[in-house]
């Protein structure tokens, strides 16, 4: 597995421009060797990537590189629109959809000179925690192919872990960046809601969706965030505050800093090996001079039930646009307009999308709105307040990412509620909007990676990344 960081690769490219081509070729070789088994990509773009790498190498030769990301080989989760490149959301509904424009995050990365090697597999419409909902097959875990890679950004995390790309861009609505990063032993950041533009991201649940990187190290995440974060007039929910130089704050000493730990975390079905790994993590931070402080998040246990009302409500609205008329799957069996809607949507959507559309339609319907949707929005306020109160006392909160390490393929596929509980430590943070970094912090007895979350204050990615990087340096990654 190739583990060079973005800065190491960049240094190499500056010294020997032809290494851009060599690096891509080595990655394409890895893809050739592993992709049949892993299935981390829906579409691989080897030909255009070879051209992009040659162009990048020429820029380096002339001393005109576009910056540290120039020539870096990336994957893009297949929920981001890529101009002239098929974008499926891993759903047959969009099997032949070719966007006419780039998502803002893709546009920014292209301007920074990256080499896009393909579109990463995920659960269809980003609905799921295992990629088992993908219409293009499950992505297997590179550490153990009998297990899932997590989801929904499972293809992104597996590809980074297997060395099939240097980093990937994912989306996180209830844990979809952090959980697969933890299952695959890589680093993933869910930034603050509104920090990264979502223009061109196929919408799942609009009050929760965030865009962020999955990468090899916290330093890489910082470098990528410096490029992709920021206000975008095309996304009215993006927030217009300056983007800090995240990589500049990575080495700040942690002496005297405070880390919150909530006792509620151990009462939510946490595996004992993950609990021990987190205890060991606390010792590492203590060794760096930080203090562990007890905080309370009394409403975090309601994260998943609130999430499974608000999220399907928004899903049912966002998937309303797939009508078989403007783009996407169009039924050939329909007789009239209304019949066309029913048949196109029946044929195009898989079981999980249908479940969420129905659930969302139910919680928003007259007579149930107050009991479910409005109630959930109120409990969401309490969850948000819990995090605000806790983070007023500490710099960051340390938390598990997942109750268990990567589960077996098929293990949870038949029970939606069991699958939803994979989000128990992550969904609440989307409801509150805070940034959260998922980084590896050990292995269990089956040699599967364990992850931890570092949760920060709104728009304080700097501190979160600082804590992540200092841990990696101290613990030796």
């Amino acid at each position, binding site marked *: 597995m190739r583990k060079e960081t973005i800065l190491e690769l960049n240094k190499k490219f500056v010294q020997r421009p032809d290494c851009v081509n060599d690096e891509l070729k080595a990655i394409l070789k890895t893809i050739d060797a592993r992709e049949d088994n892993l299935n981390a990509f829906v579409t691989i773009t080897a030909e255009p990537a070879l051209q992009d790498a040659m162009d990048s190498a020429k820029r380096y030769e002339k001393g005109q590189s576009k910056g540290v990301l120039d020539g870096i080989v990336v994957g893009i989760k297949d929920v981001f629109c890529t101009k002239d490149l098929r974008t499926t959301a891993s759903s047959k509904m969009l099997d032949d959809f070719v966007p006419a424009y780039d998502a803002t995050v893709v546009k920014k990365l292209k301007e920074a000179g990256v080499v896009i090697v393909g579109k990463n597999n995920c659960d269809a419409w980003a609905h799921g925690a295992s990629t088992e909902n993908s219409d293009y097959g499950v992505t297997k875990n590179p550490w153990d192919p009998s297990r899932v890679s997590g989801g929904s950004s499972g293809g992104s995390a597996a590809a980074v872990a297997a060395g099939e790309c240097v980093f990937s861009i994912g989306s996180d609505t209830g844990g979809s960046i952090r959980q697969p990063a933890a299952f695959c032993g890589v680093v993933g950041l869910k930034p603050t809601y*509104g920090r990264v533009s979502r223009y061109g991201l196929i919408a799942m649940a609009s009050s929760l969706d965030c865009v962020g990187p999955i990468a090899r190290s916290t330093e890489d995440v910082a470098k990528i965030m410096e490029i992709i974060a920021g206000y975008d007039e095309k996304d009215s929910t993006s927030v217009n505050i300056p983007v800090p130089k995240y990589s500049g704050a990575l080495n700040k000493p942690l002496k005297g800093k405070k880390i919150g730990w909530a006792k509620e975390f151990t009462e939510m079905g946490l595996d004992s090996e993950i609990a021990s790994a987190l205890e060991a993590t606390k010792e590492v931070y203590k060794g760096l001079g930080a203090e562990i402080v007890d905080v309370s998040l009394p409403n975090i246990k309601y994260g998943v039930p609130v999430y499974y009302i608000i999220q399907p409500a928004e899903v049912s609205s966002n998937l309303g646009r797939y009508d078989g008329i403007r783009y996407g799957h169009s039924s050939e069996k329909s007789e009239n307009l209304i019949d066309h809607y029913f048949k196109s949507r029946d044929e195009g959507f898989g079981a999980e999308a249908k479940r969420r559309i129905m659930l969302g339609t139910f919680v928003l319907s007259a007579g149930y709105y107050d009991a479910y949707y409005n109630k959930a929005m109120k409990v969401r306020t309490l969850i948000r307040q819990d995090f605000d109160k806790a983070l007023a006392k500490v710099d960051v909160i340390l938390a598990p990412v997942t109750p268990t390490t990567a589960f077996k393929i098929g293990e949870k596929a038949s029970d939606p509620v069991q699958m939803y509980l994979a989000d128990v430590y992550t969904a609440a943070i989307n409801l509150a*909007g805070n940034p959260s970094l998922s980084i590896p912090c050990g292995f269990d007895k089956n040699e599967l990676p364990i992850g931890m979350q570092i949760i920060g204050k709104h728009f304080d990615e700097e501190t979160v990344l600082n804590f992540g990087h200092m841990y990696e340096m101290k613990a030796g990654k």
Partner: protein
Amino acid sequence: MNKITTTDIDKLAQLARLGLTGAEKESLATEMTAILDYVKQLDEVDVSKVEPTSQVTGLCNVTREDKMVNCDIERDEILSNAPETENGFIKVKSVL
């Protein structure tokens, strides 16, 4: 507890314009009943003095000036994804 029946499923599917097979209706009724049973634990939370949160960064009604802006995407590019077109328009099935 809310027990979802296949009659409820029919009604919701009508609202959502979603075609479903008989087997799908049966399993959806069972699964949705289980999910709603699970989320029912929110009943124990007192929210009588709590305001709802619909989004978290405090933005409110972001609007732009009502002015035409040029789009850098050509009409043909957008229409190329439509299943059926005619003379530069998207073709729709007959309404009746």
